[in-house]
């Protein structure tokens, strides 16, 4: 998945995204970071073609997604919305099954193969027990996993997740992040928005840090998520520390205080 020279602005207004270039290979995770209102969600929607780039293009497997028929595009790429925006009318299984839509004709209903695939992904994510529960009656963490399962049911090569670990408790955050890591290790390309620089440092191969006004930095996570870039983008003084843990050394970002806007002297 590649974005070449992507720019976006609403009809009358300042450009929100300018000349974005990024690439994610199969098996890689890209984290998109940035302060509220910097355009993270807009970027995600532009990458997927839900919003049209006003300049530039997204390429999937070297092919422009603009010229791709939607059903072909969405059987290669899948989108996981934020759980709080999802509809709760269906059971978990019915929701997962909707992920097969891109592979079914307009008058078709899911066949044996589709049902099996939906069962398979639910088992893979360990949520088979939820199958007959209504989405309105399960927890936020469970719903997020159901939505990931729905995306996987389309058998995509690229998975796009909009703040998948927001509004979740510690354990559910880990469940979601572990799932993403595992999918990547099996060859999936994952792109996710996040409010947690620590998650980017620990999980992603690449990172894209947006600042308000369209500036951005893209590259290997270790080079993008630094104390200096966090200060510049978020206006927050943070330290990046390495903690010894039973699982080896783990990096973590700790926000200290709001940075002095005048840009004078700062203690480290």
């Amino acid at each position, binding site marked *: 998945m590649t974005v070449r020279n992507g720019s976006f602005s609403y009809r009358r207004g300042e450009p929100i995204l300018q000349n974005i270039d990024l690439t994610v290979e199969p098996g890689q995770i890209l984290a998109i970071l940035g302060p509220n209102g910097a355009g993270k969600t807009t970027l995600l929607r532009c990458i997927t073609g839900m919003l049209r780039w006003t300049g530039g293009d997204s390429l999937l497997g070297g092919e422009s997604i603009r010229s791709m028929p939607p059903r072909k595009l969405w059987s290669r790429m899948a*989108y996981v919305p934020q759980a709080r925006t999802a*509809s709760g*009318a269906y*059971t978990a299984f019915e929701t997962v099954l909707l992920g097969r839509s891109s592979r079914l004709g*307009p008058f078709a209903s899911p066949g044996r193969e589709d*049902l099996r695939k939906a069962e398979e992904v639910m088992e893979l994510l360990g949520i088979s027990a939820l*199958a007959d529960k209504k989405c309105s009656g399960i927890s936020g963490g469970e719903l997020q996993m159901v939505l990931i399962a729905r995306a996987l049911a389309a058998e995509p090569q690229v998975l796009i997740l909009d703040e998948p670990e927001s509004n979740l408790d510690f354990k559910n955050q880990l469940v979601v992040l572990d799932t993403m890591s595992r999918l990547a290790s099996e060859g999936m390309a994952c792109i996710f928005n996040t409010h947690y620089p620590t998650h980017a440092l620990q999980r992603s191969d690449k990172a894209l840090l947006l600042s308000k006004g369209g500036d951005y930095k893209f590259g290997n996570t270790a080079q993008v998520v630094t104390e200096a870039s966090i200060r510049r983008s978020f206006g927050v003084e943070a330290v990046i520390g390495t903690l010894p843990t039973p699982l080896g050394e783990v990096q973590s970002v700790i926000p200290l205080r709001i940075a002095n806007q005048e840009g004078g002297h700062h203690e480290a």
Partner: protein
Amino acid sequence: MTAMRTGKLRYGWRAACLLLPVAAGVLALGIGRLAFSPTQVLQAIGQALTGAADMTALIHRTLWRLRLPRILLAALTGAGLSAAGCAFQSLFANPLATPDTLGVASGASFGAALGLLLGLDILGIQCSALVMGGAAVALTWLAGTGSHRGRSTIVLSGIMMGSVFNALVSLVKFAADEESQLPAITYWLMGGLQNASYRTLLLGAPLIVTGVAVLWLLRWRMNLLPLSDDEARASGVSITRLRAVVVVCATMITAACVAMCGQVGWVGLLVPHMCRMKFGSNHLALLPVSISTGAAFLIAVDTAARSISAQEIPISILTALLGAPFFIALMRRKGGWSL
């Protein structure tokens, strides 16, 4: 492995869906001032099919000229309004949506009232109702859609357009002749199937059948309707086209129903919700069940409307009086539901 969750109805339920309206129809054929037992009705049906005509002309006329078209009209209207209501509730992700949400019934009522005022014949009234119903929805659609507008915008503009057309109906009533036209318009607006004949069915029935058939074919895909815009688009399905097709079908159905029998309230709201409580929101099961239940429900209510008292009771009065308490009882027992 456990049984696959196909979401389809089990065969027993499918048989029930087919039999329920038919059974209601057979019973209803026998009920009325000239009463027949179901056995007699079945005998009569057998005779009619084989051509062995030893029925009296009176029975023949009662069964096939008077009651059958009326039962067919009730079945079509009930099935159509339930399907349309079910579609609109999903489309707007709003449990309060009815077939009239986009103003089609108000528009069609205005068309019918105008036709009555102008003294058109029954076919002219139907055409006028259909055209005005379509026009109301087109206006609502123009007013309520556009970039960055949510689904509540179109529901609100539907309510506005409904009130505009209701005002126009009042205007027509105001202009109508008090002796003859005003009562005719008022009775029409209360809804009733007393005008049923094969001739009235001719115009409306094909529209209802087509609309219901298209919705039925799209029934699994209709599951995408309540999803948010981004989710729906990420399904790879052209959601705009799906919504447009559903709106056109539901509009066509509702306008045709109003054109044939005035405003039959409540069916489009009550029946889909009753079915949702039992069968969930998966349209693969929900839509067929709603169609079948709607048909049987309206046959039953209309039969009651024409046989409870010597004079016919307008059907909307009964749908509300019978439907609402039943609905409330069901809702309280199930503890509500979500869409």
